[in-house]
């Protein structure tokens, strides 16, 4: 019985936030720290930070926790990384945007639109053969919505990847 439990623990995604110098190559250096240890990056968002010359990276990844500890230390060790923090399980505000394309005839869309409404998703493209929904919120919420939409003719999915910010005066 221990095996599936361990596997589940391994699969639980972690969310890291990195504050990095905005320099060419920094993304590769970061990615190599994961790749070398056979760790999979599930999503990665890079964007300019409030301070010029710096960027913010939010990384979700999964793998075994001992390796993650080493990964965070190796990331911190990179000259271009100012800090790397594991926010898994803390109270940071997290969000993500998803765009979902559904191919469905006009007269069969009632349920799709009900699902969209329930999840606060907006119809951003309404065409004769297909529609695009835009939803945002916690990743688990988006997962649930997407599962409901799959049988409705979901053909394309683009997610921004998770971004997060620590609350109060805590550093992200």
């Amino acid at each position: 019985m221990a095996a599936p439990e361990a596997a589940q623990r391994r699969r639980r995604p972690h969310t890291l936030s990195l504050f990095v110098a905005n320099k060419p190559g920094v993304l590769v250096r970061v990615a190599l720290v994961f790749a070398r240890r056979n760790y999979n990056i599930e999503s990665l968002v890079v964007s300019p930070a409030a301070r010029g010359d710096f960027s913010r990276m939010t990384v979700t990844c999964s793998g075994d926790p001992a390796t993650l500890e080493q990964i965070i230390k190796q990331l911190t060790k990179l000259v271009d990384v100012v800090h790397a923090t594991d926010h898994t399980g803390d109270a940071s505000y997290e969000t993500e945007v998803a765009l979902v394309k559904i191919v469905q005839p006009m007269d069969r869309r009632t349920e799709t639109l009900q699902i969209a409404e329930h999840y606060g998703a907006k119809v951003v493209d309404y065409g004769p053969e297909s529609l695009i929904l835009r939803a945002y919120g916690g990743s688990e919420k988006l997962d649930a919505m997407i599962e409901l939409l799959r049988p409705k003719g979901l053909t394309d999915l683009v997610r921004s990847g998770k971004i997060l910010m620590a609350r109060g005066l805590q550093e992200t």
Partner: protein
Amino acid sequence: MSAASSAAPPTPPPAATPTGAEVLIRCLAREGVRRIFGLSGGAAIPIFDALVDSQIELVLVRHEQGATHIADGYARASGRPGVVLVTSGPGATNTVTGLLTAHMDSAPLIVISGQTIRPNLGTDAFQEADVTGITYPVVKHSYLVNDAAEIPRIVREAFHIATTGRPGPVLVDIPKDVSQGPCSANFVDALDLPGYQTPGRAAPEALSAAAALLAKARQPVLYIGHGAVISGAGKAVMALAKQMRAPIVNTLLGKGAADETHPLHLGMLGMHGTAYANRAVTHCDLIMAVGARWDDRITGKLDEFCKDAVKIHVDVDPAEFNKVLRPNLCILGDAKLVCEELLPLVQPCNSEEWLEQCDKWRQKYPLRYPKRGGLRAQHVLDRLDAITGGRSIITADVGQHQMWAAQFCRTREGRRWITSGGAGTMGFGFPAAIGAKFARPEEEVWAVVGDGGFQMTLAELATARVHNVAVKVLLINNNYLGMVRQWQEMFFENRLSGVDLEGNPDFVKLAEAYGVKGLRIRRPADVDRKIEEARSWPGPVLLVAEVVKEDNVFPMIPAGAPIANMIIEPPRTPLEKPSGST
């Protein structure tokens, strides 16, 4: 051009603005660089050109790998960074093994490579290689210089990063239009590296926690690594060992941090360490690592390594903590500072019985070798140690000869033993000795090499000859890739595969072809005389010891086995294949 303008006198170039290459060389001089090891090519010509008018001496090598190992040996012997200059493409890729070697062993190396001009980047231009891309995993940091104005800042940062904290190699890739173009940037002193911190003093709480653990130990061992050599912690380690009454063991790269001939010193531990060092580690109740990283050559089977002993880990690199095992206490800081600050806090351990026990093991399992049956590497190395009194600098290549040299050439102080430990790079030993001799010309420098590894970088015989670098190369010629043959004999039913070095040249003639003195030892009776002859020769010497072909290194802990399974004498029964890697 119109006739009118061609008739006008040519406007002289604004003489005041130097090129990027000239600024680079001035910045290097400002960092104290006196010598650069390199080999030129199109994309690096402007930099080589700037060297013509500089005080910095250029040492032309015969292969870029040689340049990296020479610079690495220079760095390890002196503590100052070694500088390499190569061209783009294949010139730069030839440095990759040297970068790995330096990276694994924390050696400060600066590799400057020429690159194709900026407009050509990414077009598969002639001799273009994505050198920063290829080298990311084997450098401490790297730069692709995009603007000549950045050169002074980058050089300052590169030297700072290479030499501080846990040292390592830094690569600077410079497009030819950057080195050739004008550069009016000024020298830079201030550093702005918010992502780079180097620890200094340890936290006082960590030190007092360590003192409390040390006070309880009855069977302590100090386990000393390369970090202690790098930080110059030798005296502090010895003082601590004396104060605690604790024996010392060192890693392959930690050799010499503390005097290996001291009665408290048990020599090298690990796969081919002394039986008494390994016994001590198996039975200790506390082990304190100082600048060592619990490498798999040391721990053997991890679950059984020092299972019940208290473990303390002192390191300057926090990423080493909890990497392979979880110590009871980690102390972040420079090895020397930590040992010095611990000294007044520790009391002598109640370790009389323990020290006696360690001495009994030392008596019971001395390093030994058969005195008959032809010329043996161990005998030659034993005599080299005795004749030089351990006062030379010894570099070793990789293989059986390396392990015998580590066992029999006891190292008395730091930076007198240089070998590729982490990477195990064959071909390192000889060029590293050239670098060590450049760094410390007043010292006697010996390179102990095998017939396999020597042939990987022997072209640097020309470099040694041209610069009259008086290194003494002791070539242990067993006509085999001996260490691999040993594994095949012991663990693969002696099914030899790809280890016979049939076709070896006559090495003495080879040396002579380069204008280097060649000497040969065939009989045990000749050993002392030939070593002395090599020592008294004023220039470089290749001393070839024709040793018995099929000798094995003992003690040996099969890779991945618990230390307790150490094989002290040649086994009579077949052994299982090792579970550990290499």
